[in-house]
């Protein structure tokens, strides 16, 4: 593996064997299918996919917690199966919604304990803890018991735990999951600052928040059903849809209109209808703008009123739908 790569995977597969219901034979679930990735040092790489796409499985393999069924993976140049002891001092991981630590310990004590597992001298650990807690706005809670923290505060503490050991490669698995807007923003800010201060460090971020991936990542891999379906910079991925016209329409509830009848119109590449509180939202991807007139005509023949029409730039969600053929939140 070349020295400038932080992470590399080669034909990586992970298959779980799960027990079905009683008397049913065990069945196999493919979590990862032939995953090939190369992530250079210093990159913030995003792994984007819906729940169950295989993001966490890939992270568990790269953090030496899970063995691949076949294929190989290297982290910092070391094989995840045979050289895990060389990888572990160089990495750390934070998962969204994790409840690690001990409720009876204070925030500082918990973080100090995990720092000791990495051999960090106590004085240095305490200095870093204070600094990182200040940066995520948790300094006032340093001496509070972990059991007294809210979910958001606890997640901030976990994020601090990840950065505390100054890993060469940091794995962030849905780090802002379930956080309020402010807390999520503080964490994203810390991620950006940390990478700016340590340009040679690498972060692998998994998320199903498209905007987060768009804002933070240098490159993004879209993963679905265990397969990497695309891998490029967010701008390049969106560029694929740039030549198409994307519209978002607020419409009255479409009782007898199936999206397929809209997709039958020549020039309509995709039509997605989703319910809203006041009616429905229609997402349209058209080959050219002129097709819109025909779409509106069809809507009016079904007595559907258009309340608002917006033309917008493509998002990563549009890219996902284009590649996978279904909306992001539809598993």
């Amino acid at each position, binding site marked *: 593996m070349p020295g400038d790569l932080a992470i590399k995977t080669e034909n990586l597969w992970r298959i779980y064997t799960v027990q079905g219901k009683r008397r049913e034979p065990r069945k196999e679930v493919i979590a990862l299918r032939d995953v090939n990735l190369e992530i250079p040092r210093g990159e913030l790489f995003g792994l984007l996919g819906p729940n169950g796409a295989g993001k966490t499985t890939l992270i*568990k393999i790269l953090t030496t917690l899970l063995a691949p069924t076949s294929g190989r993976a290297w982290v910092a140049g070391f094989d995840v199966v045979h050289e895990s002891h060389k990888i572990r001092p160089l990495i750390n991981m934070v998962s969204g919604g994790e409840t690690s630590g001990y409720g009876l310990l204070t925030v500082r004590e918990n973080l100090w304990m995990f720092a000791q*597992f990495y*051999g960090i001298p106590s*004085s240095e650990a305490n200095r870093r803890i204070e600094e990182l807690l200040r940066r995520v706005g948790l300094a006032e809670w340093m001496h509070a018991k972990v059991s007294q923290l809210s979910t958001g505060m606890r997640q901030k503490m976990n994020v601090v735990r990840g950065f505390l050991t100054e890993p060469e490669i940091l794995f962030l698995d849905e780090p802002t999951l379930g956080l309020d807007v402010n807390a999520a923003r503080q964490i994203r800010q810390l991620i950006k600052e940390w990478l700016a201060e340590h340009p040679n460090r690498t972060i692998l971020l998994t998320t199903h928040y498209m905007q987060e991936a768009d804002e933070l990542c240098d490159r993004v891999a879209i993963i679905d059903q265990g397969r990497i379906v695309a891998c490029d910079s967010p701008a390049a991925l969106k560029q694929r849809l740039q030549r198409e016209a994307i519209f978002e329409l607020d419409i009255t509830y479409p009782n007898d209109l199936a999206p397929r009848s809209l997709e039958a119109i020549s020039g309509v590449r995709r039509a997605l209808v989703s319910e809203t509180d006041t009616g429905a939202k229609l997402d349209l991807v058209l080959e050219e703008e002129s097709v819109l007139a025909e779409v509106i005509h069809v809507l009016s023949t079904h007595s559907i009123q258009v309340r608002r029409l917006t033309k917008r730039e493509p998002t990563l969600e549009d890219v996902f739908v284009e590649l996978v053929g279904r909306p992001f939140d539809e598993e």
Partner: protein
Amino acid sequence: MSLWSWWVAHLMKSKARGWKLFLKTVIARAYPRVIAQQREKSWIFFDVFLPMLAVSAYVFIYRAIGAPEDYVGFVVLGGAMTAFWLNVLWSMSTQFYWEKETGNLSLFIMAPAPKMAILLGMALGGMVATSLRAGTIIIVGSFLFRVRYSVFNPPLLAVVFILTLVALYGLGMMNASLFLLWGREAWHLASLAQEPIYLLSGFYFPIKSLGFWVAVLASLIPLTLGLDAMRQLLFPSGSALGFLNVYLEVAGLAVLSVIFLAAARFLLNYMERKAISEGRLLEIQR
């Protein structure tokens, strides 16, 4: 920056490795048990008051039937050692199950810290925290029931006590490694083991009463030999009611310590590899 100050700064920041990392890990993992567990004052009720009720019941029975007064001391000592057994069962053997549930286990495995140091830290912390509880039971029980001790050989008593704890927590470490793969089954097994060991280890009566071969079998549990040896060294009638010669029991405890600790080390490595291969370290089982 002078060479000296650079070296000091480097030393302050450099990460420990080898035996230093091992020691740091032991202390760090023992910390939550030694310090934090005392913050929850409910332990006085659950770990001292409730066990004292069982001790009291046996004391009243022995006094009602006119048993020798040393039996009261046997019961108080047994009650104190119960605290260690419960700690080994619920806070050692099943600990990795709880760590898996909270998400700590994957962080422990992923850290560069030696896993054996994490287990040892758990055991050491448990020993210290439980000694406080056991000591309280001894003091309160001895005061309430006016127990009289005749310590014949204090250094040997200390050796027996320490070896008993080492062997007992070695058993706990071995079980913890064994249960690394399991989920709720570990919890059920611990439930299943709790009461029979009270009987087999003679917590409230001399083990000799069970007969030689049952006592030999029960000696696989370190508490059996430890309790018997301590009773022989603490009470005048202890040696008459003792199962084996104290020195033989010390040798037995030493052998058990070595076997359990070696087995814990082997099983921990084996189970870690197996759990990683089968994907059973993950909090969410697939």
